[in-house]
């Protein structure tokens, strides 16, 4: 197992940046998720680590060894592809044995290793079938087995669950996570699904437009997004973002309501040098506390019952829609007026010019 270090790695296709200079250190045994919308450079980054894509500038180190210009086969890493890339002319067994044969391993040892990994993934019974005769989940397991069997220094996975049905995705997500916990192998996992990223990653690297927006644990990126992009991208729905004005008594929301600010934030906002107090106020749906004595007003635009809770869509006086979480049994007629407060500890502020978070 190994740590991976990217030093000033960038990739250009012609004049277009696929990945702007990127520094990242992945610790031994860490599960890192590269998250972002399609075309943000996450897959290119993964492919550069694997060696399938050459870097334009920069260095890639695997356990301190410079592998920047090594062929993929010389890097001792395994890659799981989105569409599995199982060889359709070979049985599952031969697919799994394929990487071992490259290393010229003795036949009985290959057999033993394949049996071990097949038992681990519970695919012993399908080893003699061709990939075409397997279900999506089993194809995925075979692909994982092929990656695991070599005991590589690191695993790279490119949207490995993307080709599976929603129902299966949950199962396989749990399986991959369990495998990771058992093997404790350094893993770099690419996905565009933020729920998957939150569920699986030790740390998440959020990318957009070829640039890393934030690196942090799931909790960090959820509660303390570094900028507006991350605030919108993480969470379902994303963070509520409204234009507000900081006043001595609190933050004035569009349409009039005044939300009190904690002292900590007041000091931070004073020190941030904002002109005329204009900020973007951000808060998660769970920061919304609907009750009759609330200081803020809104109209109920829609409400969705989610089983465990109700998601209220509230319309502020200026027509802006925010999302708030309410109790499961909360009954609010559409169009009715409600009052709410915002949990002061869960409020976040962003500079409207730079779109960056104001730090407290």
């Amino acid at each position, binding site marked *: 197992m190994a740590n991976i270090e990217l030093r000033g790695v960038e990739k250009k296709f012609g004049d277009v940046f696929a990945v702007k200079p990127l520094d990242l250190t992945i610790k031994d045994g860490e599960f890192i998720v590269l998250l972002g919308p399609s075309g943000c450079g996450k897959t290119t980054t993964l492919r550069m680590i*694997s*060696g*399938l894509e050459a870097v334009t500038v920069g260095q890639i180190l695997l356990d301190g060894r410079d592998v920047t210009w090594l*062929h*993929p*086969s010389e*890097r001792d*890493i*395994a*890659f799981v*592809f*989105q*569409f*599995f*890339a*199982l*060889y*359709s*002319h070979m049985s599952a067994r031969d697919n799994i044995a*394929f*990487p071992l044969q*490259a*290393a010229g391993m003795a036949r009985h040892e290959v057999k033993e290793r394949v049996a071990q990994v097949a038992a681990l993934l519970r695919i012993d019974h399908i080893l003699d079938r*061709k*990939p*075409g*005769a*397997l279900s*999506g989940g089993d*194809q995925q397991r075979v692909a994982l087995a*092929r990656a695991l069997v*070599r005991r590589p220094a690191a695993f*790279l996975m490119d949207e490995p669950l*993307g*080709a599976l049905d929603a129902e299966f995705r949950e199962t396989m997500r749990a399986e991959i996570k369990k495998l990771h916990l058992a093997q404790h192998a350094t893993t770099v996992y690419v996905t565009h699904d933020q729920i998957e990223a939150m569920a699986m990653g030790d740390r998440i690297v959020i990318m957009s437009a070829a640039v890393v927006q934030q690196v942090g644990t799931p909790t960090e990126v959820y509660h303390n997004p570094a900028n507006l992009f991350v605030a919108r991208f993480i969470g379902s729905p994303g963070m509520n973002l409204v234009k507000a004005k900081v006043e001595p008594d609190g933050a004035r929301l569009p349409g009039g309501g005044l939300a009190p600010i904690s002292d900590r934030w007041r000091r931070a906002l004073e020190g941030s040098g904002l002109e005329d107090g204009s900020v973007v106020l951000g808060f998660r749906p769970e920061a919304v506390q609907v009750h009759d004595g609330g200081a803020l007003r809104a109209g109920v635009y829609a409400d969705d019952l989610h089983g465990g809770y109700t998601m209220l869509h509230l319309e502020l006086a200026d027509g802006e829609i925010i999302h708030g979480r309410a109790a499961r049994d909360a009954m609010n007629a559409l169009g009715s007026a409600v009052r709410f407060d915002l949990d002061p500890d869960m409020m976040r502020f962003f500079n409207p010019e730079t779109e960056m978070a104001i730090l407290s």
Partner: protein
Amino acid sequence: MANVANAPRQKVVISTRVDKVSTGARVTSSVRAAIAVIVALIMLIPVAWMAMTAFKTRPDAVAVPPKVFFEPSFEGFVSLLTSRRQLTNDEIAVYQQRTDLGWADQIALIRGQAITGPSAFPRQLLNSLIISGVSTVFSVGFGVLSAYAFSRFPVPGKDDLLFFILSQRMLPPVVVTIPIFLMYRQVGLHDTHIGMVLLYTAFNLSFSVWLLKGFIDEIPREYEEAAMVDGYTRLQAFRRIVLPQATTGIAATTVFSLIFSWNEYAFALMLTSDAARTAPPSIPLVLGTGGIEWAAIAAGSLAFLIPVVIITFLLRKHLLRGVTFGAIRKG
């Protein structure tokens, strides 16, 4: 008796279980099969006629009305495979007394001829086999390599190059026979196996590059990438992954290349005379003395047809299997 409990509620149009298929669907598929068989039979009539003529005697071959039932004879094959000498009446009388004649000599004797030796045809057939076989191996071999390169690497001027390659195919071969004839005579390639292999390889290559590029484009890059990450070099990945995946394309290209060089007539007529002469220009020359030897021509055509039939038959599985059962799912 059909199992009613397991029968589907709606009529099934296609199933491997006969008891589940509706009568209408069964009739339709029978009619379709019958039409296919009839069309196939109509297509086969000329070939069958040729095969029959090959086994007819000279009078039978030209009989009016044509004979469908006849006594088979090897006269055609004897005329095709031997060179003969016309005997005088005296000699015929002597020959008829001899007891040491083989069956072929006896057939020749019916027509008052004596066999003097083998004809050139077997060697010409062998030439055809060598030249078309080797040129097919070369054009498919080079074709698959360059098709792979065009498919996977950023070749500078790729589109122009590909068009240039294709444009070779737009040239009618007959136009260049005379220049090539003159050049070949100059460099000593005239009437050589190497010369013909070179020529046919060149002509087939453009076609095979294009055909194979289509097939290789279909193979997902992830296949090779997976192999490369798993510890194989690109060349190993090519051999162990790309080639097996491209079998269908390679088989199709092989058959097309083989048929082209096997059938090629104009160049063979101009550029070969003796040592490297192939079968196509020789078959019409088996004209015999005093009348066209239809049986011999048919026998020659039959012998000429068989190798292609064998190759196509051997590769039929790959030719029919359009797409492989891929494990790569297009999301």
